[in-house]
């Protein structure tokens, strides 16, 4: 019996020796992913709690900060991420029904959506950096009405920056499962990595669903 985690022969996956069967391996891996998702909720949750507290303390300052954001860009990115979540879910669907080529195209579309999201983010960030709307001591916008406007951009860059980092990591993981799918390593019985990466990608969408109204609409 091999001690390797995955013994792959001719595209057929065999479950690792410490699992009872392939199903046992699948549900164990998936439970691990869900535990990881809990840590994601708590990490972003801490930032949301901080945002709500300071928003209640300084509502005018947050309104001033939000006025520098373009809701059209935020709304556009929301549609892009919803579309990417659909194609990610379709990628898993196609692997499950044996259409691996269609799955590859779905994953490529997901990657493209992630890239579009980051390009829009790049334009938003450069606009703010150019104006000097930055966190803490880097803040250099002379016409600020609120004295502590730098705090708004502390929250803005931390929350969207952490989210954007997740988009980049998600894109790297999708590239990994895309390559493995093109090599024919997945079929209707074994697609655990795609399932896990899919859940990670959907949580990126889930967090943006709350970030969009919080930063662009309510502020």
């Amino acid at each position, binding site marked *: 019996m091999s001690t390797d985690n995955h013994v792959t022969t001719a595209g057929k996956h065999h479950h690792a020796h410490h699992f009872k069967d392939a199903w046992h391996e699948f549900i164990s891996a998936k*439970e691990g992913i869900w535990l990881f998702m809990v840590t994601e909720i*708590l990490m972003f949750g801490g930032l949301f709690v901080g945002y709500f*507290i300071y928003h209640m303390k300084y509502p005018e300052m947050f309104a001033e900060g939000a006025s520098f954001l373009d809701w059209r860009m935020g709304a556009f990115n929301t549609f892009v991420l919803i579309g990417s979540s*659909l194609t990610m879910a379709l990628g898993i669907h196609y692997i499950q029904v044996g259409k691996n080529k269609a799955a590859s195209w779905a994953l490529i579309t997901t990657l493209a959506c992630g890239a579009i999201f980051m390009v829009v983010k790049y334009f938003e960030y450069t606009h703010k950096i150019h104006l000097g709307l930055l966190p803490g001591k880097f803040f250099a916008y002379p016409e600020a009405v609120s004295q502590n406007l730098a705090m708004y951009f502390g929250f803005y860059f931390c929350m969207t920056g952490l989210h954007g980092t997740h988009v980049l990591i998600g894109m790297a993981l999708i590239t990994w499962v895309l390559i493995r799918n093109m090599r024919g390593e997945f079929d209707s019985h074994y697609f655990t990595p795609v399932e896990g990466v899919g859940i990670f990608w959907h949580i990126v969408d*889930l967090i943006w669903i709350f970030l*969009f109204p919080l930063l662009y*609409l*309510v502020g």
Partner: protein
Amino acid sequence: MGQNHNHDHFVIPFKTLMNVCLWLCFYTVLTVVTAKVPVIHHALGPLAPLVAFGIAAAKAYLVMAHFMGLKYDTKSNRIIFASGFAFLGLLFIIVFIDIFTRVLQTNTL
């Protein structure tokens, strides 16, 4: 695949995924309309943020249930993920009780 014939992977239907996507787009338009159309926004008044987060919660449910597949997943995975939100709720409540019940001391005597 060995002994797992009793456990078939659930395939989320194509139609379900498309419908969820359309609903998510609809809710996004709805949230933008309630926040950016002045007549509606003023009519909602102080309820506007609640409406925005209510719509976000509905969208979050669709993503969690159908895209993340929690509706078709095991009960233990649903409980695991819900526990994250439960502890986040606890964090919210405890921190808010602390911050908004503080008595400002203006005189040290």
